[in-house]
């Protein structure tokens, strides 16, 4: 069930990389492309944070994951390394659930 979308997405991600080395520069340097493409990761990552923190299925919820996100935010502000940010968030969620 997961394999087909997984392989299709992998192929598409490869073709995107190939297109950067193959498409005419004029197309890639189009101001609209230059403006829009860098916005996508910002918008999508922010939406992923919101959805993965404040929802279960199609329900909005506020649970231990919100505390985990707050701790992760503090860790990022303190310039903690990636593994520490992720580990601190997981530990926070586990602790809050224990209480």
């Amino acid at each position, binding site marked *: 069930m997961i394999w087909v979308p997984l392989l299709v997405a992998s192929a598409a*991600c490869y073709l995107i990389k190939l297109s950067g080395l193959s498409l005419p520069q004029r197309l890639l340097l189009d101001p609209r492309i230059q403006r829009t493409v860098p916005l*996508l990761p*910002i918008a999508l990552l922010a939406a992923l*944070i919101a*959805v993965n923190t404040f*929802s279960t299925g199609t329900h909005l919820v506020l649970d231990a994951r919100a505390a985990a*996100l707050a701790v*992760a935010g503090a860790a990022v502000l303190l310039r903690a390394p990636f593994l520490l940010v992720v580990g*601190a968030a997981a530990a926070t969620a586990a602790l809050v659930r224990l209480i």
Partner: protein
Amino acid sequence: MASAAYALSFGAISITAGLSLPQTCALSILMFTGASQFALVGVIGAGGSAWAGAATAVLLGTRNALYGIRLVSLLDVTGSRRVAASHFVLDETTAMAIARDDPAESRFAFWVTGLVLFCLWNLGTLAGALATQVLPDPKALGLDAAPPAAFLALIAPRLRGREPVAIALGAAIVALVFLPFVPPGVPLLIVALLVAVIGLRRAP
């Protein structure tokens, strides 16, 4: 070394999200672009369909096309070399290649960074996935709460200035507003569509 840490947490998050060990490793071998991989397993872990996850991963991967602009003149690759080089077109390899003044050094930096990164990334993924697989209940360790932290660490370097912060907040709000009314995963695609419509239309 930082990439090994990313990979370790990717392996752990992927297994916690319900992907198998072969699926997790296949992603790191075949997709080989961090943010997209995290997004795919993040969507699946949050109950979204694998297709919604796949679409989000591809949309996040679009930025890799822009690295090609910087790389194409530096690398001067054609034919089968271009086919191989494409797999290594990433944030890190681009940064290492453009940091060199000499074209030969640029090419060397690109290929070495690409190969080392590919090895570290896949070994880290395997280690993280294997370690998580032996856990009786990854959720008891809070690993299901890890994806947002990973996304936060990935987005943080991009949030310089007011416009990116405003876009991030707007995207988060739009996603949550649509969430109760559409299938899981779809709010992300709505956000991407809005970005495309606004970005491609706005006058330069």
